[in-house]
């Protein structure tokens, strides 16, 4: 049986579109997806001077909670994430590993002074979740700007790409033994 993907909503974050996100991930990966709530110690990941959370440290904490071998865990948080050197990241993943984390913080239109739009937010969240999980399944960035694995460094780029893998990335996933992905 194919090990599932766990969507772990961190430290009490409970957006109304959890099921929509789970459906989007399930559709892109053709894998069972389970939604869980997880509390981890975020204090060590907080950088007071930046008012941001260190994505790598959150990821390290998440990896201690992978429920079963072969499963992938994706942490979902509303906190703003960073890695040293960069001002922010939408998410981070362990390349060809077990876990990833995405932040909804900069995916929300209201972050940019625009009206709240939960539909757009969840659409972006699906894309970033599928993107980071793609890394966890071993994919690197894709030059096809419509592919979900295309690198996005600002939110308009996230809007531009689709929420599914291109043919080349699907083929790569199959080569890597993740044949159920599409």
């Amino acid at each position, binding site marked *: 049986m194919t090990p599932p993907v766990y969507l772990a909503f961190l430290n009490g974050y409970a957006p109304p579109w959890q099921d929509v996100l789970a459906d989007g991930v399930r559709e892109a990966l053709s894998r069972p997806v389970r939604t869980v709530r997880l509390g981890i110690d975020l204090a060590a990941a907080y950088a007071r001077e*930046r008012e941001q959370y260190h994505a*790598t440290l959150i990821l390290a904490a998440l990896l201690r909670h992978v429920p079963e071998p072969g499963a992938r865990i994706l942490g979902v948080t509303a906190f703003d994430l*960073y*890695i*040293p*050197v*960069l*001002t*922010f*990241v939408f998410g*981070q*993943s362990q*390349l060809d590993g077990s876990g990833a984390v995405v932040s909804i913080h900069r995916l929300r239109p209201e972050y940019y002074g625009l009206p709240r739009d939960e539909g757009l937010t969840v659409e972006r969240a699906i894309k970033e979740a599928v993107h980071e999980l793609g*890394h966890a399944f071993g994919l*690197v*960035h894709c030059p096809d700007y419509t592919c979900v694995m295309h*690198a996005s*460094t*600002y939110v308009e780029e996230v809007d531009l790409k689709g929420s599914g893998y291109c043919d080349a990335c699907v083929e790569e996933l199959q080569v890597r033994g993740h044949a159920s992905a599409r």
Partner: protein
Amino acid sequence: MSARKILIVDDELSVRQSLREWFLEDGFAVTTAEDGAAALQLMDDGPYDIVLLDLKMPGMDGITVQKRIRELDKGACVIILTAFASVETAVEALKLGAFDYVTKPVDPDDLSNLVRNALRQRELTEENVRLKEKVSELAQVSPIVGDSPKMQRVFDMIRTVAETDSTVVIRGESGTGKELIARAVHAQSKRRFFPIVAVNAGSIPESLLESELFGHEKGAFTGAQYRRKGKIELAHGGTLFLDEIGDVTPKMQIDLLRVLETKRFTRLGGNQEITSDFRLVCATHKNLEQLVETGTFREDLYYRINVFSIEVPPLRERTDDIMPLARFFVAKYARAMGKPERAVSPDAERLLGEYRWPGNVRELENAIERAMVIGSGETIRAEDLPLHLENGGAVEPVERSLAAVEKEHITRVLEELGGNVSQAAKVLGIDRATLYNKMKRYGVRRDT
């Protein structure tokens, strides 16, 4: 296509790890170094497309590291990472050739664009180098002049062998243009888009030849301050032209045989085996069969290299080519010297035709070059040529017909007597009517 290589140099572990993860997701082959010394060691082991370099590090500072990186690999794109406080130093780094600098923390989009632009520059630089090498290679392929049947046979052989990947031995006296033949074989082969690398085994002592061919590691011998690739490695994908193979020492013959059989070798002082896919074209003015008989040339190497043999005839055996070659060299040196082209006078032409050319085409080229330098007027005269029939080993070619000699002598006498047929007939010991008949038969005119 293999992954682009990026080297991240920063003393902070978290920065190295973060950037490593970031660029791995982008499909880069990522290496990290915690200080300048480690970075330079890595650079010494192999090239990187991009180097992300922190300016403030303990030990060797970023500016010094950058200077050393430029010495090791001019093509590497160095991107400086700096804090706001050291922007002035970053500007200094730019003046020293850094591609750009970013202040930490950097916006992901800025870093992404910067790296994309750096890669584009790197690709353009690499393309530029390849094109320059190609242009230079094409410029080196001089046309081979030769309408004589013997040279036509050589051209046929070049065409035949170029299509194969066989080893070729080009034989011929010194100065016959063996290297030109080798370059023609390469230029017509499927390897033509890769380099042809020439080594003259006869002009280099054995110890140096070994290093020249196989390369050496840093510290392999006194004075080996840097790793150096050998000619065999540089010829990867292309052709190795080994001139004067008959002069190679027995020790080198063994080494060469091994490389030819396995296409693998190690640099001097190194342990790592390197593979090079090259085609060998070699040349010699010596009789290899005699060398094998006397034991100075290995029989197994002889059979290994003597797959296809091209014999380049000496110039004295293709006298039809002398004047076309002379005119070719006149045009070549006229262009080089910015002078008008000059005709070759009949006496000079006769001298060129009668000379035995022990130094072959090279000697002819030198003679024409000298004539173009010292001569004046519209024509090259016999006295402009540094050829002395009595001292230069010139002999009358035995294969010339009596008619050719007679025609030449009549022409010369008429020329000396200003076209006076009566006087010429007296000198020649024949009557005027006979002389006129001969002039008509040979197409000789009074004003020749």
